[in-house]
Structures are given as C-alpha cells and as structure tokens.
C-alpha cells in the first residue's frame, strides 16, 4: 500500500516551494512593513499554495508563489482598517507628478552616497504602491519583466513604466535624504 497521497503531494510541494521561502518572506516584509504580519502572510501563502498545488502547471514557481502572496496581502490591507493602500493603481496617481520632475530638478549627475542596508530598506518602504512592489520584484526578487507581469497580473508595458517611476521616486528620496543630512 502506498503512503497517503497527501503526504506525497506535500513532499513534492516542499521540494518545489520551500527553497523560495526567503524570497516570499522578503516580498511580504516590503509589502506589509511588519515582521509578524509578514510571517502570518507567508504561512497563509504556503497553505494556499499547497492547496492549489494540484493545479500548478508552471512555468516558474517563484512568480506563482508571489501571485498567491499578493492576494494574501491584499486581504491583509483590507483587514487593516486604516490603510487603504491596496496594491492597485490609484486612479490618476501616475499623473499627479510628472515622472521626470525629480531628476530634472538636479540634472547634474550627483553620485549617491552608499548607505547602510537599513536606511535603503526604509527608503524602499516609503515608496507608494504599486511602484514599490514592482521595484522589489525586479531589484530584490530578481524577477524578469515577464515574470513580474505574470505575478502582478499587469501587461509588461505597465511593469516597465511602474519600474521607471519607482526608481525615479527612490532616487529622489535618496537625494532628499542626503540634502537633509548635509
């Protein structure tokens, strides 16, 4: 008699999904900005992923897990009574500030001072959604544009403009900090 199917499925799932635990946790930390909420979200994400593992047909495990984590986080945003910052485009958000205003304000190429990881993480945390999410998926989770598009359910063109916007905002925040600390 074979060992129960559930266990075999869980075993396959472990091998396929657990190697990405740090990646999933990292994304959760940036999306939720709270260590304990992130842990809960990641656990919920893995539970759901195991449940739907039968229907998983690839192509890549990481974007698939990220897509599930996003749904969990969106539910968490909804739960947080005071936050309305779901990972959706705020209508007109992209129009409120011209994308290049920040850099054009100081066209000379200032070299950014290296900062410790904590300071940079804080600046990334300060980015608005959906730009932060796109930035983290590209720069920290190392997803390709196509994989990001798949994980967030947006066209590649949207991913590209969000990423450009996110980097412009981050650089502006970085320079503002340096200005401040002078």
């Amino acid at each position, binding site marked *: 008699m074979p*060992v129960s199917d559930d266990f075999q499925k869980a075993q396959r799932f472990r091998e396929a999904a*657990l190697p990405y635990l740090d990646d999933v*946790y990292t994304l959760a*930390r940036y999306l939720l900005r709270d260590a304990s909420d992130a842990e809960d979200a990641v656990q919920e994400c893995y539970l759901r992923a195991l449940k739907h593992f039968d229907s998983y047909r690839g192509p890549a495990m990481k974007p698939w897990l990220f897509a599930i984590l996003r749904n969990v986080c969106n539910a968490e945003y909804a739960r947080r009574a005071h936050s309305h910052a779901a990972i959706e485009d705020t209508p007109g958000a992209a129009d409120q500030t011209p994308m290049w205003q920040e850099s054009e304000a100081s066209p000379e*190429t200032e070299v950014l001072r*290296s900062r410790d990881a904590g300071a940079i*993480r804080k600046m990334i945390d300060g980015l608005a959604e959906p730009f932060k999410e796109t930035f983290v998926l*590209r720069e920290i989770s190392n997803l*390709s544009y196509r994989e990001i598009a798949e994980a967030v359910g947006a066209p590649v063109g949207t991913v590209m403009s969000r990423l450009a916007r996110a980097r412009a905002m981050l*650089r502006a925040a970085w320079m503002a900090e340096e200005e401040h600390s002078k």
Partner: protein
Amino acid sequence: MTCDEAQILLHALLDNELDAGHARELEAHIATCPACTAEFAAQRDMKCVLAGTTLGYSAPATLRARIEASMPQARPQPSRRSVLRGFAMGSAVSALAATGIVAVVLRQDDQQRILSEVVSAHLRSLQAGHLIDVVSTDQHTVKPWFNGKLDVAPPVIDLTAQGFTLVGGRLDYVDARAIGAVVYKRRQHIINLFVAQTASTEHRPPKTQTMQGFNCRRWGERGLNFWAVSDIGGDELTEFVDKFDAAMKANVEG
C-alpha cells in the same frame, strides 16, 4: 525616439531586457540628449549601489517550522510502520540513518505508484481508437512526430527484423506529465514502450514486475526512464528489452 520613451526604456537596458534593435535606438538617443544621458548615468549608479547592498530578508527559523508543521506529515501505513518500528528498535543506528531508510522506502513507493499509472496507461491504450496517434512502421516517420510535443523525443527503433513490429507512437500521461509511448506488436500482442525524461543519468538495470496481469520491465539509461508493458510472457518481454537496448546502443555508437 522621444525622451519620454527613452526614460522608460533605459531601465530595460539596465535590466538587460531590451532587444538589440531598441537598444541601438536608445543608445543613439542617449548619445545626443544630455537629459537622458544624465538620467541613464544616475540610474546606473543607483543600481550599482543597490546591487552591493543586502536588501532581502531571511525567513525566521520559527516561520519555516510553522509552515512545516502545517503540512501533512508522513503517516506510514501499518505494514510499513511495523517495518520501521522493528528497524528502529532492533538496531542502534542514528536517527539520521533511519531517515535515510524512510527516504528509500518512499522512493520505492513512488516507483510503485508510477508503475501502476504506466499499467493503467497501457490498459487505456488497448481500448478501441486509443492505441496510436501516429500510425507508421517507419521509425523515420514516428520519431519526428514526437519532436515539439515532448521536451525530449523518445528513441524510436524499428525492431521488425528482430520479431517486434513497430506500429506507431502516441502521447500519453503518466505522473501528471506528458510522456511518449512507442507501440510495437508481437504476433497479436501489443507492447507499449513508455519513455520519460528523468533528472538522473545513472544506469538502472532492467527489472520485471507484474501488475494487474501485465508484465512490466523498466530500466533507466542516458537520462531516460523506460517501461515496457505487455501481456506477452516475461521471457519474451525480456527479449524485447534486450533487443531494444542493443539496437539503441548500436544507434548511439554507430
């Protein structure tokens, strides 16, 4: 190219996502546009600083443990449990070695499950109209038919001269994956030769098992797993596998 376009595409260039045509166009724009030159340099610098900083987090060990605990754990069936218990009590091996035994037991179970799927696939194929997707006794017709349908096309070898007639090929599903089945006939008996890609390149010698009244001889060679299933006798199936194996070796070496 406008500056608005360039300011978005320069990120794709930095991320190695831009195709050669757009990259040339963008570089040409940057070369003549001071604003985009400055933005490109600024973003490249920032990317360098970011790349040199650890921005990811490590999942706490407690989280890993919580997730592990929430998944179905191994609950061996009684017969196996008694085997394991006997093993654990009867010897003083370390817990680590015991885990190794469990892994071996599970792997064999997996083989058993796949074998039963292979036999089911063989049974399905015997129903009218299910045996063959491509009908041909010519290996040069059957082999290309598999190309593009599977990551690795199975070796298709005509064994008519050796008493096993190639009759065609079929796509089948075993272990939730598409695999190739090459179909032979021996008198009025059907032989399905299932071929699946495997990560392991080790040679596994042929072994015959019976299941549901069928003989199944399986072996592993050159990154492929083979299962030959038929209702012909064990001796004849062994002969089939020996001849197939010899012909495959001759093909590879010749």
